[in-house]
């Protein structure tokens, strides 16, 4: 408990979490506004369309998460942290938890902000959250952001270098998984099981929240059901974290 409070003090006493939160909200809000205000009868505004921009916000959140740990290495305060709390696993776990909680918060705020903005822009469209799929599409953004943040923290712990860790996280998230599909024969099969693709399944399901509309954000090709998809992504995050914590414990500070 104390360690959580300590990490909260550390995270909120610097400027980056505030800037990241602001950027995530502006980016998603702005893009959503653009999408929704240009909808037409062929491309209707649906609940799904309010969440098209969630991956932008998620990228920003992942950068925040990585920085939360790499700046400690950069400025040497990781040594001060391990001096104060020699149980490195507990200290890093507390940090990951606080970052994940903040990611959850920012994720939910950005999702509902986009949804609310869409309702304001197109009040005549049917954007009510009626089905489970609708709710998962909007409220599901938070948990996915939280787990993505855990993955980003794990990468930060392993790589330790700000620029390197952020590049790795962003390139993987924004590009690498999609490029797997270019592999002939087996590319699509591998892609079905790539973690962020599976996470996307949790948020967008089989497209029910888009009301069967043909256009828009591609759906996930994962064959898991939405809840199993979340479990899969959570498992991936946990494995990354375990590897990171084990490494941090054994090596020199």
């Amino acid at each position, binding site marked *: 408990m*104390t360690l959580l409070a*300590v990490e909260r*003090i550390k995270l909120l006493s*610097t400027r980056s979490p505030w800037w990241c939160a602001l950027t995530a909200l502006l980016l998603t809000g702005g893009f959503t506004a653009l999408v929704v205000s240009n909808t037409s009868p062929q491309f209707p505004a649906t609940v799904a369309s309010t969440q098209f921009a969630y991956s932008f916000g998620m990228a920003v959140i992942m950068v925040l998460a990585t920085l939360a740990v790499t700046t400690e290495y950069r400025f040497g*305060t990781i*040594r*001060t942290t391990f001096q*104060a709390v*020699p149980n490195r696993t507990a200290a890093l776990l507390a940090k990951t938890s606080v970052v994940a909680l903040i990611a959850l918060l920012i994720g939910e705020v950005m999702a509902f902000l986009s949804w609310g903005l869409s309702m304001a822009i197109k009040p005549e469209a049917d954007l009510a959250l009626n089905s489970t799929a609708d709710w998962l599409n909007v409220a599901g953004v938070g948990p996915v952001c939280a787990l993505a943040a855990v993955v980003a923290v794990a990468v930060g712990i392993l790589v330790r270098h700000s620029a390197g860790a952020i590049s790795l996280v962003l390139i993987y998230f924004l590009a690498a998984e999609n490029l797997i599909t270019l592999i002939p024969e087996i590319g699509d099969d591998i892609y079905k099981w790539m973690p962020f693709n599976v996470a996307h399944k949790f948020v967008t399901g089989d497209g029910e929240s888009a009301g069967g509309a043909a256009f828009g954000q591609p759906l996930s090709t994962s064959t898991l059901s939405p809840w199993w998809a979340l479990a899969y992504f959570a498992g991936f995050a946990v494995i990354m974290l375990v590897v990171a914590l084990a490494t941090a414990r054994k090596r*020199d500070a």
Partner: protein
Amino acid sequence: MIEAQGLTKRYGDKIAVDDLSFTVNPGRVTGFLGPNGAGKSTTMRMMLGLDNPTRGSVTIGGKRYTELHHPLRTVGALLEARWVHPNRSARAHLSWMAKSNKISPKRVDEVLDIVGLTEVAGKRAGGFSLGMSQRLGIASALLGDPEVLLFDEPVNGLDPEGILWIRKFMQRLADEGRTVFVSSHLLSEMALTATELVVIGKGKLISQSTTEEFVARATDSTVKVRSPQLDRLRPALEDIGATVTESDGGLLVSGASSDKIGELAMENRVTLHELAPQQGSLEQAFMQITGDSVEYHTDIDTADAAAASAAATN
């Protein structure tokens, strides 16, 4: 009390700390001396559980650092003043440290007051001068009111008033019964502050003794003699077996006490203008003893340079 036993740290092929064993006792300031690259910082990091020893161990009060509960309340350390996030305020930095070891928030204000940073407590640490960062580091070492204190180059960046303050402060802490372990390059400062010395070179222990013993052992005791009748005195000295060397305007005699030289002068009707026993300096002792263990040499002839600066200060 800090005890190192067979402490060894190896980075690949390079042995940074080689079978180091020493004890640091409470109630006094112990200096940790060594040339660059000798392994001082590595040893201190191993004391704090930041680096893992390849072999051997170092314990504080009988326990390893990782076994201590709320370690900041037992050991306070200043290893590097710049290990602070630049956008964080001094107060926030101390607050999270205090909270992590369940130290009362009032203590944060107390230590800020002790080091004189109360006015700038709310300013971001990135804007601090080197002296202010150093003082913040000292404040964080004092936070838990610990019985063991480790300082790595604490006077670095302090002005003369600050240097005097930290010297008196460390001595006061030692007088209170705490264990104070200071590593430094500033030999003149070390001579004034530390009563015991642990000297290492190339990772190995060179000596552990009191400061006086160290200086006495390493430097020859010589006597400086000036006289208008040196040509009569010199052979007389050489007759009794003393070694005589010329030295700016006089002679440096080793192997004979100043009493003996005075009596010899009387017997040979030699007037003495100066008869001064030369106290070896810590710098000379240090250069002599650690001469071969310097990791990164410069080309300056160090023995002559040390003698010249010793003569300049005398």
